[in-house]
């Protein structure tokens, strides 16, 4: 059982902070979330899947938003395979495995955001498998006109709010939502600060650490995560770490099913500093603060329409804009190349890959692509590919 660290008083070094995050990341019994729930009678936990869910509403309902990103490489999938055909990604199998093995038996609600047809169908399976768990497929608009997609989305957010009210038996006021928005604005600012810090000084904030910091943050109360982010920034800045002759790269295509931690580490060990990525996008999905005045539902809807990242589960209305976001991010982070790393059978990422890679080619940005699964075990080919890519950039770019 992993110890639950009180981050209000505790870790001050990056090693301590990351050890705490690693413990949460490794814990497929979700001990910390169970402890949060048990600390106060009546508390509820709402799980959510990638890529984006309006966590502010879950928080405003007094619930803990619990990020569920599959079972990783430490869990054997036995039951999950009995639900799916052969040719499919692994995250739905391991999510089912988490469910049927009782690891999520404390989760009171589940939100399945729109990502692809697999996650969509998983939402219906959950209704059949766990009829006593409130579950919701959360469809985000593909029309970005405030009068069309915005009106639709505001009503969907309102429906989500009502669902959460029914689940918790408490009214969610506009002020509740505004307070949560403010906390998540703080969170987004700190998250951006960490990523900016990594882009500036990647040797001081390795991606394997930043990743754990962010993944753990999606399983804890936002205020606790805010303290942790601030502590990490201060600790990482203060530490003296050697700078290596690594190549600066961006990783795209990994927004849903996550690669094993060893894969993330392997890319770094192969001579790459990851200075930009789309791992577990949730807390970076909105790129700007959400206004805390006015109608909070409209504020969340408009933020989605106007200030969200480009990723494969969103439609790009204008052909000329396709991939523009990625190129701008690459330039902003001063990445020298892109690794397009996708889970096997990931429709969104794999259908997008030719278009994004074409745009990268046009922009003169070197790139390579490979596939993984959350339980991929063989890292040598990844290291070789990433290492060769890094060498080629050093030699030829």
């Amino acid at each position, binding site marked *: 059982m992993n110890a639950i660290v009180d981050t209000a008083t505790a870790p001050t070094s990056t090693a301590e902070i990351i050890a705490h995050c690693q413990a949460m990341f490794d814990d497929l019994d979700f001990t910390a979330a169970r402890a949060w729930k048990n600390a106060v009678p009546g508390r509820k936990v709402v799980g959510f899947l990638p890529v984006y869910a309006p966590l502010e509403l879950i928080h405003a309902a007094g619930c803990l938003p619990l990020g569920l990103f599959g079972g990783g490489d430490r869990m054997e999938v036995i039951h999950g395979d009995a639900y799916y055909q052969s040719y499919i990604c692994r995250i739905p199998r391991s999510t089912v495995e988490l469910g049927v093995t009782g690891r999520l038996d404390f989760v009171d609600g589940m939100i399945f955001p729109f990502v692809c*047809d697999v996650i969509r169908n998983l939402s*219906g*399976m959950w209704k059949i498998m766990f009829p006593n768990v409130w579950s919701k497929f959360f469809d985000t*608009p593909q029309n970005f006109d405030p009068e069309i997609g915005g009106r*639709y989305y505001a009503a969907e957010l309102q429906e989500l709010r009502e669902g959460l009210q029914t689940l918790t038996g408490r009214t969610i006021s506009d002020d509740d939502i505004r307070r949560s928005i403010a906390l998540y604005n703080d969170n987004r600012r700190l998250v951006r600060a960490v990523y900016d810090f990594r882009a500036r000084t990647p040797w001081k904030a390795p991606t394997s650490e930043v990743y754990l910091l962010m993944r753990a943050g999606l399983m804890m109360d936002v205020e606790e995560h805010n303290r942790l982010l601030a502590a990490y920034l201060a600790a990482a800045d203060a530490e003296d770490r050697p700078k290596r002759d690594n190549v600066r790269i961006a990783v795209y295509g990994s927004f849903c099913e996550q690669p094993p931690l060893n894969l993330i580490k392997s890319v770094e060990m192969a001579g790459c500093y990851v200075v930009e990525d789309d791992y577990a996008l949730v807390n970076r999905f909105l790129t700007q603060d959400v206004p805390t005045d006015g109608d909070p539902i409209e504020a969340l809807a408009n933020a989605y329409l106007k200030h969200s990242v480009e990723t494969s589960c969103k439609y790009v209305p204008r052909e000329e804009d396709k991939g523009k976001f990625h190129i701008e991010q690459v330039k902003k982070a001063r990445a020298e190349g892109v690794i397009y790393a996708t889970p096997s059978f990931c429709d969104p990422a794999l259908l997008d890959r*030719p278009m994004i*890679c074409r745009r990268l080619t046009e922009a003169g940005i070197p790139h390579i692509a490979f596939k993984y699964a959350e339980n991929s075990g063989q890292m040598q080919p990844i290291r070789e590919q990433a290492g060769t890519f890094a060498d080629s950039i050093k030699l030829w770019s």
Partner: protein
Amino acid sequence: MSEVVKEPSMLLQKEMIAKNYDAITSKHHTGRKVSSTFVPGNLNELLLSFGILNNLPEINAIQNGMRKLSGDYILEAEKSGHSEDVCTYVKADIGMMGKGNVAPNGKPFPDPDVLLLSYTGCYTFMKWFELLREEYKCPTLMLHVPYEGDGHSTKNMRDYIVRQLKEVIIPGLEQVSGVKFDIDRLREALRNSAKAEDDLVWVLEQGKRTPSPIDAYFGGVYYIGPIFTAFRGTAEAIAYYQALRQEVQARVDAGQGPVTPDGSNFTDQKYRLVVEGPPNWTSFREFWKMFYDEGAVVVASSYTKVGGMYDLGFRHDPDHPLESLADYCLGCYTNRNLPTRVDILTKYVEDYQADGLLINSIKSCNSFSAGQLMIMKEVERRTGKPGAFIETDLVDPRYFSAANVKNRLESYFQMIEQKRRGAARAA
């Protein structure tokens, strides 16, 4: 292999499809505009009201699959960077473009004037049209149809679709066609649709008879051809479904089963199946033969509902034209959530007195396939009838293993026999 024997309605349909391809490939002479759009949730009546022709990439992929061309097209697309993991309809379409973009009539496909992305029940459509847009550089009109995640549509979903129709799709089609929107033309087309839909439902429901005068899967793909594609809303579709109805009525009167591709009437029906999932197109006839050789007839299928669930009562409604289009899009089979699909299939097994549910799980179609093993178990549990699971692909010949499919089917039929013997003993 001997020549395939076709029923009169099949020949009629063949003529209709050929005529549509000729109209598409002659657009430079006729000046007509051409749209590319998808089958589920397509807005054919709306396109008709603007005089725009309808070209369907999925149908082209099916045509190329049945004509044994898709394998090369898929390889062509994979060579240009498309993953082996994704939808083979997409790759067959893109590969076809790479190899000259020739239509089934041997003439080159013209570039579409508009990509009408009616995004219903399948995520891949969205990326497919982003990929085509990159190639054709033509306007893309996106109609986002929300998924019925809670098992029903809501007013918000319907309003969202109607607003898109009014503010995005119709103005966009006016611009492409140069034709002003005429709601009465749309109403007329919707009226035509409803008539044809009545006859289609009558035909599909004949599967409840014993022997079944139809095969609702292999025959069914022909029955749904006109109404799911470029003909819904036309007088031709009405005539086709009247002819089809008469043809099926004649078999009902004679107590006959459907005509097999070999030309015999398939009346000695030993097993009645409900089938979930699309068929395999590259080995379509071989696949079909595996069924009728064993005496298995398909009495109902979900694939015949991808372009609309008319059997559940939906009809296009000329009195509420835009709302009716919205309801149509929302109600297509794969836009319904898994519990609803389980309900529908359970009802089919019961209403059509089937021996069980067979799932043909498609390698590259997650919209249909993700979670189908659970569907099978649920339907088995509720009906007490055995289910079976086979895996093939749409148009990628690499994923059709005849021996495996045949083995599984034979095992399944043995299972049904055992179940029957058990039931007889219990009685």
